[in-house]
């Protein structure tokens, strides 16, 4: 009878143990995140509400991110115009550059790029700010003073992020179209009026809905993931760094994953003509 060599069994067991531990950890994290995100969301519908915190966070997320969103939108639109004009010229269809830039920006790139840019800036800042508060016992102090940190810190951030991402996406879309227009007129030497009229004509309400539903989900993901990793920080300043990285990475991946699922659902709901 063949027997497993003595040195293999412990290695196999160790591998199984590691897999089991990792799987349990992932399930536990998902469960904790779900409960956290649910509680943070439902807090808005009961007292007390902290409107001043909502306004402060709206300023930080909205106004603070406007410049990076504006620039990334403008140059993405420009790149789209450059790339599409080069390809479309092979079919003699450079006239539809505006249509291409408009549909791509409004349906897809505007919401996703804005989400990722804001995640890089704000999910990280939320995780590091709350993480620092955890390791310096400020969160415990807040609880000891009879104030719920979920209501005071997390819920205002989530709703500020959702509402501001909606408007930032509109800004990104608008500047993307402007960037495409600038490239079309000044680099591709095409007619600007034709570009903007094509960009406008091709748009339908389902395109707008698709582009404006996505940031609502992205905003929720950015703030809830950022706050979740911040609030479960352990291990001092090193732990704060770890939470910040996890928040940005997971928020970015989740934004793209949810974008895929939403696109699939919205295309089924509003099939293209």
């Amino acid at each position, binding site marked *: 009878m063949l027997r497993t060599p003595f040195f293999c069994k412990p290695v196999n067991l160790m591998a199984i143990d590691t897999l089991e531990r990792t799987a349990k950890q992932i399930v536990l994290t998902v469960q904790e995140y779900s409960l956290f995100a649910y509680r943070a969301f439902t807090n808005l519908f009961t007292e007390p509400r902290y409107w001043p915190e909502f306004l402060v966070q709206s300023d930080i997320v909205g106004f603070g991110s406007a410049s990076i969103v504006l620039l990334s939108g403008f140059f993405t639109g420009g790149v789209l115009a450059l790339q599409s004009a080069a390809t479309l010229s092979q079919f003699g269809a450079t006239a539809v550059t505006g249509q291409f830039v408009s549909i791509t920006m409004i349906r897809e790139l505007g919401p996703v790029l804005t989400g990722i840019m804001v995640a890089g800036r704000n999910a990280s800042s939320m995780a590091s700010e709350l993480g620092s508060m955890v390791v310096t016992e*400020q969160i*415990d*102090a807040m*609880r*000891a003073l009879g*104030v*719920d940190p979920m209501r005071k810190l997390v819920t205002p951030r989530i709703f500020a992020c959702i509402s501001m991402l909606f408007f930032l996406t509109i800004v990104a879309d608008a500047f993307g179209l402007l960037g495409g227009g600038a490239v079309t007129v000044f680099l591709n030497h095409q007619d600007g009026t034709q570009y903007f009229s094509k960009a406008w004509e091709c748009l339908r309400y389902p395109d707008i809905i698709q582009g404006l539903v996505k940031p609502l989900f992205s905003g929720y993901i950015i703030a809830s993931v950022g706050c979740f990793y911040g609030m479960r920080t352990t291990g001092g300043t090193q732990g704060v760094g770890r939470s910040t990285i996890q928040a940005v990475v997971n928020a970015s991946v989740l934004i793209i994953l949810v974008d895929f699922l939403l696109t699939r659902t919205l295309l089924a709901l509003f099939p293209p003509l």
Partner: protein
Amino acid sequence: MNVPFASTQPASLSSTDRAPVVAFHNVSIAFDGPPVLDDISFSVAPAETRILLGPAGVGKSVLLKLANGLLRPDEGSILLFGEEISHMPEQKLFPLRTRVGMVFQEGALFDSLTVRDNVAYQLIQERVPDDEIDRRVKKALRFVELEETFSLFPSSLSGGMRRRVAIARAFIRKPELLLYDSPTGGLDPVTSTTIIELVMKERDVYRTPSLLVTHRLQDAFTLCTHRFDAEQGRMVPLPQGETDPNTTFLMLEEGRLIFDGSLHDLLHSESPFVREFLE
């Protein structure tokens, strides 16, 4: 018999008045390993100051957080103001915690707020008018002798000043229980004495029950052998051989409560660990 540090007679209180403010019954807690606290039972009576001694890392801060419901025990029950809090939902704990003042190890001041807003944190949440807040904050800062820091940020304060602001924050709503987590830890002797004097002032002027965590024997003995003289505005030693009757000791060793008694009992304990700790 010549007994050093014999307690003076405690103030007479009826049995209902002596109902404990905090009571631990067979409390245990662990964090991914052996128990941090194992089968802990003790209580804090009204107007009583209990000093929790023990080396670093023995679970003193954990015990303090359990007393305020910031952590939940794995086993046993904790009564705070007569209410069982070990399984109480967080939302129901918040109003209960507003009756407790807690001073954290490093102060735990909110670094984005001024001293005024830190001290007035609870009052601001309760939407107390600004004039009233200013008046009460100034009074609390006067108590800790830091009136001049009113509009400063915590980052511009020294370690000792931060600790005193944290004490002012804990005192401002006249709590029914005070929890001090190593209020003198890491401070120089002069600043430590100032902090201990404040703790004593609160004990002797307002008779607030408290649970104080420390690993500094000197602070513990000072609290036991001195009283705050309101007329002189400073602490004065009790007559030779007397101790404060309402100040008693608890000692932890590897998560277990190995001592519960007066200073006299502590000094005469046969426990090798207590003897080693005292030496």
